[in-house]
């Protein structure tokens, strides 16, 4: 009797599996698996009479003409001396042929020469922080994919494991202050309050710029609005404007998609756009990753969201093109990239 039950149980599962196959063949398979490129990047201008800039314009992001430019950061406890693994990590990250190259692969912009030199100069002043062996890093989800590339390449090059956890820049900084992780990755600067807390916890906060980002504003592909001024953007995200026809578009209610409060992008965008120090509209949907914002905008005729440029490029289908261009521009042998990615000789 009991063996029978077990056979029946197995039989049940088989039946369910077969029924499931049949059922899903009948049901229409929706488009989630094959997302279409239904979003586009909005050009921004500071005021209605300024020139417009796109976050895809590298020079504009570098010189700040694109209003939503920002750095991406790593935070360490003091400047590591040259024997520590954190030193090797920073050395890898702040290197044009390894880390900075991967910054481009992830879709962001590498540091400009002047910034890079300043960071490398800072790296030479190491005298503390002799962590050896593997260490823990955590924080920004905007930098998640970039860090994946860095960690994989770093491990191939040196054999050291950098364990990355996420949770948003705010969470990373909090963990960093609490000594749970050794390095924090953040898409915003640490606030004065956080620095005070860190000092109280005995941490010598050292800031490292590691990449450049231009926060991109995404809207639905068919939205006639192609350009927004900063005040308009502010009005959209603080809830003043609720319909696209108030900013020159169709009669379509605005749906806001943004990050959650643990996110560095949430904070950077707030500082750059909500300049009257007001809060985001409470109707804004809040996600804990940039990659979640993209499908929402693609599925919503009235949708608007903000993402790091690495995520916008993928959304609008320009990623591959940009990558090829940067390869050609940098004239880096592909073999070196292969080696870094672990596929190499």
């Amino acid at each position: 009797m009991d063996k029978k039950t077990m056979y029946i149980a197995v039989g049940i599962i088989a039946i369910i599996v077969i029924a499931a196959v049949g059922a899903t063949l009948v049901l229409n398979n929706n488009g989630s698996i094959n997302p279409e490129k239904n979003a586009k990047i909005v050009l921004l201008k500071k005021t209605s009479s300024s020139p417009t800039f796109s976050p895809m314009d590298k020079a504009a992001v570098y010189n700040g003409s694109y209003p939503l430019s920002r750095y991406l950061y790593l935070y360490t406890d003091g400047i590591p001396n040259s024997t520590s693994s954190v030193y090797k990590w920073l050395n890898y990250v702040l290197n044009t042929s390894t880390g900075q190259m991967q910054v481009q692969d992830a879709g962001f912009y590498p540091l400009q020469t002047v910034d890079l030199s300043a960071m490398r100069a800072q790296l030479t002043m190491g005298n503390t922080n002799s962590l050896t062996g593997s260490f823990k890093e955590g924080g920004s989800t905007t930098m998640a994919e970039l860090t994946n590339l860095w960690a994989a390449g770093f491990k191939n090059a040196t054999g050291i494991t950098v364990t990355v956890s996420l949770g948003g820049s705010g969470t990373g900084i909090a963990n960093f202050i609490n000594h749970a992780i050794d390095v924090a990755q953040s898409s915003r600067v640490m606030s004065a309050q956080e620095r005070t807390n860190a000092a109280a916890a005995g941490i010598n906060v050292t800031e490292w710029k590691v990449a450049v980002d231009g926060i991109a504003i995404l809207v639905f592909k068919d939205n006639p609005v192609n350009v927004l001024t900063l005040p308009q953007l502010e009005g959209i995200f603080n809830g003043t404007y609720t319909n696209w026809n108030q900013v020159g578009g169709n009669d379509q209610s605005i749906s806001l998609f943004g990050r959650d409060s643990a996110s560095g992008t949430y904070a950077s965008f707030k500082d750059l756009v909500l300049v009257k120090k007001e809060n985001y509209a409470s109707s804004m949907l809040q996600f804990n990753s940039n990659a979640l914002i993209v499908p929402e905008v693609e599925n919503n005729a009235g949708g608007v969201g903000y993402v790091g440029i690495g995520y916008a490029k993928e959304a609008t289908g320009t990623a591959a093109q940009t990558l090829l261009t940067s390869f050609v521009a940098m004239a880096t042998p592909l073999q070196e990239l292969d080696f870094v990615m672990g596929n190499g000789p």
Partner: protein
Amino acid sequence: MATKIRVKPKRGIRGILETGIWGTLLLCSLVSIFTLAMVFLYLVGNALPFFGRLDLWSFLSGTSWNPFGDPASYGVLPLLVGTILVSLVAAVIAIPIGLGCTIYLSEIADPKVKRIFKPAIEILAGIPSVVYGLFAALVLSDWLRSITHSSSRLNALNGAIILAVMMVPILVSIAEEAMNSVPRSIKEASMALGANRWETIRRTTLPAALPGIVAAIVLSMGRAIGETMAVIMATGNATQLTFDILSSVRTMTAALAIDVPEAVSGSVQYQALFAVGLLLFILTFGINLIADYLMTRFKEAYK
């Protein structure tokens, strides 16, 4: 129920061994006592200072939740309404379907079908919440959108439906047990008096099993209220106060998962979040107390 048997303590090695073993067991049970104490103290200890800084009424009735905002606001109402909205709509969906399924299972289905059904329910109960969340975010939201044409595909309804799917297995297994415990004699008596099967169920079996059924409902609602991952992935987590099921809401559990990791220990945000946690705990505690009471009543009725 276990009878308490008094045994004279043995002497010698066996006695020592015996005591040692019982000592270990005592230790094990103390761990559980310790756990409850920890949870409660932890929640209360971190939440109470918040009420020193801000009064209870504005916390409970404040309509804006923005602990990290500038200016910050600590009104829990949007979260409370979010939780209740999603759970209530889930209950409205799950209870009729679950009860119908229960009645089918315990009264109508023939044993062969039952043998297939019960493992199916157990599988449903065992699917992790992240998989439900995945389904809700990727598939269900699109289906709902094509039916309702809502402005946001991640909304309270999406969360409610997936919660209903998660509630049904618990509901069915407990309610079915309740219905099976009704003595056959009562059912047979009813049918002997000329009632057909449906009338027997309606007038005899269901009322008799009612405490157990209500306990099942209450316990499954407790599950819905306490669910974290599925609602985070399904509802969009907007902090607005709204009763519109086609708009995005944030539940209390989602607020905890999203906001606590970055809060600095001891800060007013941290304490506010723990106040939310305490409220959640009280809510689920209350629900479990009700279920407990009902379950005892239902068990005692049929000893």
